[in-house]
């Protein structure tokens, strides 16, 4: 990891420290969801009235909606009145030292090469995060603000930049877009806000890689990124290490807006708790992510590596509104044991000469079920739109499943849509070949899987790619032999 990255992480951490933790006194609202709860959340965050009204509208929408059932996943009904929607962080909740942490988790941290101090934080050990490089972080904040870039927590953005939030919030994912997006809109806890002004190329990878404090915002995260004309920004979300999290339901919303000739690159590594080997527990990750290529020549590129969560329900998409705009989706989704993933993308071609690329790699092991679900839509005025989709599935063992659900809708005869799909099984021949060269079966599987995912991993920023490779290996441990 470069020094720049390190500092940035600390900077982000610090952002959360000041943007969230210090704002809120430690307490918890009662279980359940109603208008009073929403008013209370909004009040605790000292939000302006327009923000409260927005939340209430979303809640009223949500109340009339049904939980979607079309995804190829199975889970017990969620009692939405049995969830605590607002809990301030309590550091004393966690284990007192690493000795109290599940040895299996510690082993995984060691395999991922996470330093001891970070291990403590990730495992929720009650330590005070030492941030003595405040001055360095300030330098970074200054560097960004000199360029006019705003990078702060969502709560801070609501307070400091209400005009921007008002203008863009819900403009890509409307509060009534779907059941989980509506829920998030009503109760979102915090998240990140990025604004890159015209012509500015953000000089560093922006990261919510806030390994520290991240557990406090995970449940109902809200992210909004705006790239003005001719600007560029690359944003990293997530963390390769599994984080302690008591909340089973996660429903995040991410909105991206790219104006003329702007580029947004959004990379995710998701490794929430997948549940145990018998499929007990684990996070339900129901996420709505969408980018709007609003202007001419705008480009939005999603890259995701999804290895965690018991259930993943996620379709980062692009609305290609501007002529000549470009959407990309590169995905690796891995399901082991009893994990289920139903993930893919939506590419909506509205403007002329728009193009989209989809590369999806699904890996299933154990009893895992992995579905690719993708929609490519070419609307009437989208002359000369092009799409290329490639969906590859890799099966490890014979008790898992891979499924592909492509939806293609073309309303303009000049459109070109290509779809390629393959399914392969990891071969015993391949494993034996590597064994015969001195490589253990675990490492062999990891190598084969990383080879399979190569095109997607190549899209990740360097630091992330290296960690993601390790993660794929660790996530598959015990799946062969």
């Amino acid at each position, binding site marked *: 990891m470069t020094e720049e990255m390190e500092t940035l992480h600390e900077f982000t951490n610090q952002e959360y420290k000041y943007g969230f933790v210090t704002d809120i006194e430690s307490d918890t609202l009662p279980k359940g969801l109603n208008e009073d709860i929403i008013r209370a959340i909004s009040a605790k965050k000292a939000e302006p009235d327009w923000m409260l009204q927005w939340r209430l509208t979303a809640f009223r929408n949500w109340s009339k909606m049904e939980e979607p059932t079309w995804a190829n996943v199975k889970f017990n009904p969620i009692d939405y009145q049995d969830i605590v929607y607002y809990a301030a962080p309590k550091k004393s909740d966690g284990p007192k030292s690493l000795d109290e942490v599940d040895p299996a988790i510690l082993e995984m941290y060691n395999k991922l090469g996470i330093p001891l101090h970070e291990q403590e934080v990730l495992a929720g050990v009650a330590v005070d995060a030492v941030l003595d490089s405040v001055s360095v972080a300030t330098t970074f904040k200054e560097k960004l603000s000199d360029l006019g870039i705003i990078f702060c927590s969502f709560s801070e953005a609501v307070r400091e930049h209400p005009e921007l939030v008002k203008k863009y919030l819900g403009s890509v994912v409307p509060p009534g877009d779907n059941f989980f997006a509506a829920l998030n809109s009503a109760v979102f806890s915090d998240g990140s806000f990025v604004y890159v002004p015209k012509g500015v190329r953000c000089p560093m990878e922006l990261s919510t890689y806030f390994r520290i404090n991240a557990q406090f915002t995970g449940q109902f995260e809200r992210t909004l990124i705006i790239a003005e004309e001719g600007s560029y920004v690359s944003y990293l979300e997530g963390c390769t290490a599994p984080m302690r999290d008591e909340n089973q339901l996660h429903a995040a919303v991410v909105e991206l807006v790219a104006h003329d000739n702007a580029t947004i690159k959004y990379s995710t590594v998701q490794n929430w708790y997948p549940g145990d080997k018998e499929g007990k527990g684990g996070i339900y990750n129901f996420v709505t992510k969408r980018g709007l290529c609003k202007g001419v020549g705008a480009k939005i590129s999603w890259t995701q590596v999804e290895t965690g969560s018991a259930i993943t329900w996620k379709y980062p998409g692009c609305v290609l509104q501007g002529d000549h705009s470009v959407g990309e989706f590169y995905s690796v989704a891995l399901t082991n044991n009893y994990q289920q993933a139903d993930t893919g993308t939506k590419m909506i071609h509205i403007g002329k000469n728009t193009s989209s690329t989809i590369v999806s790699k699904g890996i299933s092991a154990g009893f895992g079920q992995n579905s690719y679900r993708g929609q490519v839509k070419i609307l009437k005025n989208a002359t000369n739109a092009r799409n290329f989709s490639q969906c590859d599935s890799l099966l490890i063992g014979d008790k898992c499943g891979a499924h592909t659900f492509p939806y293609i809708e073309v309303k303009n005869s000049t459109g070109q849509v290509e779809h390629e799909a393959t399914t392969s099984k990891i*071969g*015993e*021949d*391949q494993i*034996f*070949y*590597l*064994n*015969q*060269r*001195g*490589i*253990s*079966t675990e*490492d062999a599987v990891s*190598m*084969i899987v*990383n*080879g*399979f*995912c*190569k*095109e997607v991993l190549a899209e990740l920023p360097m630091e992330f790619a290296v960690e993601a490779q390790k993660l794929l290996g660790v996530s598959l441990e015990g799946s062969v032999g």
Partner: protein
Amino acid sequence: MLSIKNLHAAVAGNEILKGIDLEVKAGQVHAIMGPNGSGKSTLAAVLAGREEFEVTRGTVSFAGKDLLGLAPEERAREGLFLAFQYPVEIPGVNSSYFLRTALNEIRQHRGLEKVSAMEFLKIIREKLQLVEMDEKFLKRSVNEGFSGGEKKRNEILQMATLEPRLAVLDETDSGLDIDALKIVANGVNKLRSKDNAFIVVTHYQRLLNYIIPDFVHVLYQGKIVKSGDKELALHLEDYGYDWIKEENSRSERW
């Protein structure tokens, strides 16, 4: 170095090896010949530890260790190398990365330092010359899209890089034209030393014109039925395997 005693092995209940005895000492090259289906490739696979073959009787000791008690990767780290008859393609896995990983596993086992990417490049460049391969090969995925000849040369390259004590070449000559055959044989000859040994499994005598064996064994119906020096191979070339088959059916009748 290698001592095989009364080795029996079966696949799916069918006995294929029916009592093999073989002693291989450092510095020696043994050729194992025989008609199709005689058990040559099974012997190679059993030595390497392929799971679908079940050893039903016998012992194999390698460098003082009970070979049959070791996992395939442990055998490799102990210095047993199998050049595959059909090398496997591994899409997306960079050849250079793969081979460096393998080398470092073996070095680590021998108590040596791992080599860095730079050091590895130096080593591999030298070995590439040995098998007359271009450096561009390092950027390709393991065996992916390789021609038959390239795959076989790649096996020899890996052997040269990993420096095994004992290399088993399983029909490395099959599907090779004469030029590729010479390159492969040349590679093997340059690696021969008093410290290592080779078992060359082949159907044809052709390869043995270039890799001169110290011993030639004929495998037939799961047993070594004849052993000799390189003259035996020449005899087989001239007369085929029929006389071996006849001799054995006679002995069965007696």
